[in-house]
Protein backbone atom coordinates (compact mmCIF):
# COMPACT_ATOMS: atom_id res chain seq x y z
CA UNK A 1 0.00 0.00 0.00
CA UNK A 2 1.27 3.47 -0.84
CA UNK A 3 2.84 5.18 2.16
CA UNK A 4 1.47 8.59 1.14
CA UNK A 5 -2.02 7.19 1.78
CA UNK A 6 -1.08 5.71 5.15
CA UNK A 7 1.00 8.46 6.74
CA UNK A 8 -2.00 10.81 7.25
CA UNK A 9 -3.79 8.08 9.22
CA UNK A 10 -0.76 7.58 11.46
CA UNK A 11 -0.39 11.32 12.03
CA UNK A 12 -4.10 11.80 12.70
CA UNK A 13 -4.31 8.89 15.15
CA UNK A 14 -1.30 10.16 17.02
CA UNK A 15 -2.66 13.72 17.20
CA UNK A 16 -6.28 12.89 18.07
CA UNK A 17 -5.48 10.26 20.70
CA UNK A 18 -2.70 12.32 22.29
CA UNK A 19 -4.99 15.35 22.55
CA UNK A 20 -8.03 13.42 23.76
CA UNK A 21 -6.13 11.37 26.33
CA UNK A 22 -3.65 14.10 27.19
CA UNK A 23 -0.77 11.60 27.07
CA UNK A 24 1.73 10.41 24.47
CA UNK A 25 0.89 7.72 21.90
CA UNK A 26 3.31 5.39 20.15
CA UNK A 27 3.02 2.92 17.28
CA UNK A 28 3.60 -0.52 18.70
CA UNK A 29 3.25 -2.55 15.53
CA UNK A 30 2.53 -2.18 11.83
CA UNK A 31 1.85 -5.18 9.59
CA UNK A 32 0.16 -6.25 6.38
CA UNK A 33 -2.88 -8.43 6.96
CA UNK A 34 -3.43 -11.12 4.36
CA UNK A 35 -6.16 -12.88 6.31
CA UNK A 36 -9.77 -11.78 6.70
CA UNK A 37 -10.32 -9.09 9.34
CA UNK A 38 -11.23 -10.44 12.79
CA UNK A 39 -12.86 -8.09 15.26
CA UNK A 40 -11.04 -7.65 18.58
CA UNK A 41 -13.75 -5.85 20.53
CA UNK A 42 -15.69 -2.72 19.71
CA UNK A 43 -15.06 -1.73 16.11
CA UNK A 44 -16.16 1.28 14.07
CA UNK A 45 -15.93 1.19 10.29
CA UNK A 46 -15.70 4.16 7.93
CA UNK A 47 -16.06 3.74 4.15
CA UNK A 48 -14.47 6.03 1.56
CA UNK A 49 -15.71 6.47 -2.02
CA UNK A 50 -13.98 8.33 -4.84
CA UNK A 51 -10.41 8.57 -6.05
CA UNK A 52 -9.46 6.51 -3.01
CA UNK A 53 -11.91 3.76 -2.08
CA UNK A 54 -12.04 1.26 0.71
CA UNK A 55 -12.61 1.09 4.43
CA UNK A 56 -10.91 1.77 7.71
CA UNK A 57 -11.78 -0.14 10.86
CA UNK A 58 -10.96 1.31 14.23
CA UNK A 59 -10.91 -1.52 16.78
CA UNK A 60 -10.35 -1.73 20.56
CA UNK A 61 -11.02 -4.40 23.16
CA UNK A 62 -13.80 -3.71 25.67
CA UNK A 63 -11.65 -2.71 28.69
CA UNK A 64 -9.72 -0.26 26.52
CA UNK A 65 -12.96 1.10 25.05
CA UNK A 66 -14.34 1.71 28.56
CA UNK A 67 -11.15 3.53 29.58
CA UNK A 68 -11.15 5.62 26.39
CA UNK A 69 -14.82 6.56 26.85
CA UNK A 70 -14.25 7.45 30.51
CA UNK A 71 -11.26 9.65 29.70
CA UNK A 72 -12.94 11.37 26.76
CA UNK A 73 -16.30 11.88 28.47
CA UNK A 74 -14.69 13.08 31.70
CA UNK A 75 -16.89 10.81 33.79
CA UNK A 76 -17.13 7.13 34.71
CA UNK A 77 -18.67 5.05 31.94
CA UNK A 78 -19.58 1.39 32.46
CA UNK A 79 -19.03 -1.32 29.86
CA UNK A 80 -22.78 -1.75 29.35
CA UNK A 81 -23.25 1.93 28.56
CA UNK A 82 -23.96 2.79 24.91
CA UNK A 83 -21.56 5.69 25.33
CA UNK A 84 -18.67 3.20 25.09
CA UNK A 85 -19.65 2.28 21.53
CA UNK A 86 -20.45 5.89 20.73
CA UNK A 87 -17.01 6.95 21.98
CA UNK A 88 -15.24 4.44 19.71
CA UNK A 89 -17.29 5.62 16.72
CA UNK A 90 -16.56 9.26 17.49
CA UNK A 91 -12.84 8.57 17.89
CA UNK A 92 -12.85 6.79 14.53
CA UNK A 93 -14.71 9.74 13.03
CA UNK A 94 -12.16 12.23 14.36
CA UNK A 95 -9.07 10.23 13.38
CA UNK A 96 -10.33 9.38 9.92
CA UNK A 97 -11.77 12.85 9.37
CA UNK A 98 -8.42 14.44 10.14
CA UNK A 99 -6.59 11.98 7.87
CA UNK A 100 -9.08 12.60 5.07
CA UNK A 101 -8.58 16.34 5.50
CA UNK A 102 -4.87 15.90 4.97
CA UNK A 103 -5.35 13.63 1.93
CA UNK A 104 -7.85 16.03 0.36
CA UNK A 105 -5.47 18.93 0.85
CA UNK A 106 -2.86 16.83 -1.03
CA UNK A 107 -5.29 16.59 -3.95
CA UNK A 108 -6.99 13.22 -3.39
CA UNK A 109 -10.74 13.64 -3.75
CA UNK A 110 -13.25 11.29 -2.19
CA UNK A 111 -16.31 11.16 0.04
CA UNK A 112 -16.46 9.80 3.59
CA UNK A 113 -19.47 8.01 5.04
CA UNK A 114 -20.39 8.39 8.72
CA UNK A 115 -18.88 5.68 10.97
CA UNK A 116 -20.92 2.57 11.68
CA UNK A 117 -20.38 -0.13 14.28
CA UNK A 118 -18.79 -3.22 12.77
CA UNK A 119 -20.74 -5.96 14.49
CA UNK A 120 -19.77 -9.12 12.61
CA UNK A 121 -16.85 -11.14 13.98
CA UNK A 122 -15.09 -11.32 10.66
CA UNK A 123 -14.75 -9.15 7.55
CA UNK A 124 -13.64 -9.73 4.01
CA UNK A 125 -10.01 -10.39 3.07
CA UNK A 126 -7.82 -7.77 1.51
CA UNK A 127 -7.12 -8.38 -2.17
CA UNK A 128 -4.16 -7.50 -4.35
CA UNK A 129 -5.41 -3.96 -4.89
CA UNK A 130 -6.98 -3.51 -1.43
CA UNK A 131 -4.27 -4.67 0.93
CA UNK A 132 -5.10 -4.28 4.60
CA UNK A 133 -2.54 -2.61 6.78
CA UNK A 134 -2.95 -3.12 10.53
CA UNK A 135 -1.53 -0.54 12.90
CA UNK A 136 -1.40 -0.90 16.65
CA UNK A 137 -1.14 2.27 18.73
CA UNK A 138 -0.12 2.07 22.36
CA UNK A 139 -1.99 4.59 24.54
CA UNK A 140 -2.32 5.18 28.26
CA UNK A 141 -5.76 3.51 28.04
CA UNK A 142 -4.62 0.41 26.14
CA UNK A 143 -3.97 -0.61 22.54
CA UNK A 144 -5.93 0.86 19.65
CA UNK A 145 -5.93 -1.02 16.33
CA UNK A 146 -6.59 0.48 12.94
CA UNK A 147 -7.12 -1.77 9.93
CA UNK A 148 -6.81 0.17 6.67
CA UNK A 149 -7.78 -1.33 3.30
CA UNK A 150 -7.71 1.26 0.54
CA UNK A 151 -7.54 1.16 -3.23
CA UNK A 152 -6.21 4.08 -5.21
CA UNK A 153 -7.77 4.66 -8.65
CA UNK A 154 -4.70 5.37 -10.77
CA UNK A 155 -6.69 6.43 -13.85
CA UNK A 156 -8.35 9.31 -11.98
CA UNK A 157 -5.01 10.26 -10.48
CA UNK A 158 -3.40 10.38 -13.92
CA UNK A 159 -6.26 12.58 -15.16
CA UNK A 160 -5.82 14.79 -12.12
CA UNK A 161 -2.10 15.16 -12.83
CA UNK A 162 -2.78 15.89 -16.49
CA UNK A 163 -5.30 18.61 -15.62
CA UNK A 164 -2.98 20.11 -13.02
CA UNK A 165 -0.07 20.07 -15.48
Amino acid at each position, binding site marked *: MRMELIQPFINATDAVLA*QGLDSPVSIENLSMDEEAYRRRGIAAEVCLIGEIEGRIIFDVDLPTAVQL*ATRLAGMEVSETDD*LVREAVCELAN*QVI*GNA*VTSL*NDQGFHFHVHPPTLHTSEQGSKGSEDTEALVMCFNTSSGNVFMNVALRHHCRQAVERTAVAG
Partner: protein
Amino acid sequence: MEKFAPVKRSEDGQPVRYLIVDDSVFARKNLARMVETFGGQVIGEAGDGVTAISEYDRLTPDIVLMDITMPQMEGIEAAEKIVRDHPSARIVMVSSVGYQENIVAALQRGARHFVQKPVKPEVLYEVIKYVMRDDTVTALGAGAGA
Protein backbone atom coordinates in the same frame (compact mmCIF):
# COMPACT_ATOMS: atom_id res chain seq x y z
CA MET B 1 -12.71 21.23 32.32
CA GLU B 2 -11.50 24.83 32.21
CA LYS B 3 -13.69 27.65 33.50
CA PHE B 4 -14.76 30.39 31.11
CA ALA B 5 -16.39 33.76 31.67
CA PRO B 6 -20.08 33.26 30.85
CA VAL B 7 -21.17 34.57 27.47
CA LYS B 8 -24.66 36.14 27.74
CA ARG B 9 -27.03 37.69 25.24
CA SER B 10 -26.69 41.50 25.38
CA GLU B 11 -30.42 42.12 24.81
CA ASP B 12 -31.60 40.43 28.00
CA GLY B 13 -28.54 39.04 29.82
CA GLN B 14 -29.86 35.52 29.34
CA PRO B 15 -27.64 32.52 28.45
CA VAL B 16 -26.89 31.93 24.76
CA ARG B 17 -29.24 29.17 23.51
CA TYR B 18 -27.70 26.36 21.45
CA LEU B 19 -28.93 23.71 19.04
CA ILE B 20 -26.35 20.91 18.75
CA VAL B 21 -26.43 18.81 15.58
CA ASP B 22 -24.26 15.69 15.30
CA ASP B 23 -25.04 12.06 14.48
CA SER B 24 -22.85 10.99 17.40
CA VAL B 25 -24.56 11.06 20.79
CA PHE B 26 -21.10 11.08 22.35
CA ALA B 27 -20.07 14.18 20.38
CA ARG B 28 -23.35 15.94 21.27
CA LYS B 29 -22.84 15.25 24.97
CA ASN B 30 -19.26 16.52 24.85
CA LEU B 31 -20.26 19.69 23.01
CA ALA B 32 -23.16 20.24 25.43
CA ARG B 33 -20.82 19.90 28.39
CA MET B 34 -18.44 22.36 26.76
CA VAL B 35 -21.02 25.07 25.99
CA GLU B 36 -22.42 24.77 29.50
CA THR B 37 -18.98 25.76 30.81
CA PHE B 38 -19.35 28.89 28.63
CA GLY B 39 -22.61 29.66 30.47
CA GLY B 40 -24.72 28.51 27.52
CA GLN B 41 -27.97 26.57 27.48
CA VAL B 42 -28.58 23.61 25.16
CA ILE B 43 -32.21 23.91 24.06
CA GLY B 44 -32.19 21.15 21.46
CA GLU B 45 -30.25 18.40 19.75
CA ALA B 46 -30.51 16.69 16.37
CA GLY B 47 -28.77 13.70 14.83
CA ASP B 48 -29.14 14.60 11.16
CA GLY B 49 -29.66 17.56 8.84
CA VAL B 50 -33.39 17.04 8.31
CA THR B 51 -34.12 17.08 12.05
CA ALA B 52 -31.80 20.07 12.45
CA ILE B 53 -33.97 22.13 10.07
CA SER B 54 -37.21 21.28 11.86
CA GLU B 55 -35.63 21.85 15.28
CA TYR B 56 -34.30 25.23 14.15
CA ASP B 57 -37.78 26.27 12.96
CA ARG B 58 -39.28 25.14 16.26
CA LEU B 59 -36.68 26.53 18.67
CA THR B 60 -34.92 29.44 16.85
CA PRO B 61 -31.71 29.04 18.85
CA ASP B 62 -29.08 31.78 19.08
CA ILE B 63 -26.43 29.51 17.63
CA VAL B 64 -26.22 26.11 15.92
CA LEU B 65 -23.21 23.81 16.24
CA MET B 66 -23.46 21.62 13.13
CA ASP B 67 -21.53 18.50 12.15
CA ILE B 68 -20.94 17.92 8.41
CA THR B 69 -20.87 14.17 7.79
CA MET B 70 -24.30 12.90 8.86
CA PRO B 71 -26.91 10.45 7.56
CA GLN B 72 -30.03 11.58 5.62
CA MET B 73 -28.85 15.13 5.02
CA GLU B 74 -25.33 16.42 5.54
CA GLY B 75 -24.58 19.51 7.60
CA ILE B 76 -23.63 21.87 4.77
CA GLU B 77 -26.94 21.29 2.97
CA ALA B 78 -28.87 21.69 6.23
CA ALA B 79 -27.02 24.93 7.01
CA GLU B 80 -27.86 26.28 3.55
CA LYS B 81 -31.57 25.50 4.00
CA ILE B 82 -31.68 27.02 7.49
CA VAL B 83 -29.95 30.23 6.36
CA ARG B 84 -32.23 30.50 3.30
CA ASP B 85 -35.27 30.61 5.63
CA HIS B 86 -33.56 32.43 8.50
CA PRO B 87 -30.86 34.75 7.08
CA SER B 88 -29.71 35.81 10.53
CA ALA B 89 -29.09 32.22 11.68
CA ARG B 90 -25.66 31.76 13.26
CA ILE B 91 -24.28 28.37 12.30
CA VAL B 92 -20.85 27.10 13.28
CA MET B 93 -19.72 23.95 11.50
CA VAL B 94 -17.98 21.49 13.83
CA SER B 95 -16.43 18.61 11.94
CA SER B 96 -13.36 16.41 11.80
CA VAL B 97 -13.38 16.73 7.99
CA GLY B 98 -11.82 20.15 7.62
CA TYR B 99 -10.31 20.32 4.15
CA GLN B 100 -10.35 23.59 2.34
CA GLU B 101 -13.14 22.77 -0.14
CA ASN B 102 -15.44 21.74 2.69
CA ILE B 103 -14.78 24.88 4.69
CA VAL B 104 -15.28 27.13 1.66
CA ALA B 105 -18.50 25.30 0.72
CA ALA B 106 -19.86 25.68 4.27
CA LEU B 107 -19.03 29.39 4.44
CA GLN B 108 -20.46 30.04 0.95
CA ARG B 109 -23.71 28.40 2.00
CA GLY B 110 -24.12 30.59 5.04
CA ALA B 111 -22.16 29.08 7.92
CA ARG B 112 -20.43 31.72 10.03
CA HIS B 113 -17.39 29.74 11.12
CA PHE B 114 -15.72 26.35 11.14
CA VAL B 115 -14.16 24.43 14.06
CA GLN B 116 -12.26 21.21 13.45
CA LYS B 117 -12.66 18.18 15.72
CA PRO B 118 -11.28 17.24 18.16
CA VAL B 119 -12.65 20.49 19.55
CA LYS B 120 -10.48 22.47 21.93
CA PRO B 121 -12.79 24.30 24.39
CA GLU B 122 -10.74 27.50 24.25
CA VAL B 123 -11.03 27.57 20.44
CA LEU B 124 -14.80 27.00 20.45
CA TYR B 125 -15.21 29.65 23.16
CA GLU B 126 -13.41 32.29 21.06
CA VAL B 127 -15.39 31.31 17.96
CA ILE B 128 -18.68 31.63 19.83
CA LYS B 129 -17.72 35.05 21.19
CA TYR B 130 -16.76 36.10 17.65
CA VAL B 131 -19.93 34.79 16.01
CA MET B 132 -22.13 36.33 18.71
CA ARG B 133 -20.04 39.51 18.95
CA ASP B 134 -22.88 41.97 18.33
CA ASP B 135 -25.31 40.24 20.61
CA THR B 136 -23.40 39.14 23.66
CA VAL B 137 -21.73 40.45 26.76
CA THR B 138 -18.93 38.64 28.58
CA ALA B 139 -18.27 39.12 32.30
CA LEU B 140 -15.61 41.82 32.72
CA GLY B 141 -12.07 40.88 33.65
CA ALA B 142 -12.38 37.24 32.65
CA GLY B 143 -11.39 35.57 29.42
CA ALA B 144 -10.84 32.09 28.07
CA GLY B 145 -9.39 29.83 30.69
CA ALA B 146 -10.01 32.37 33.44
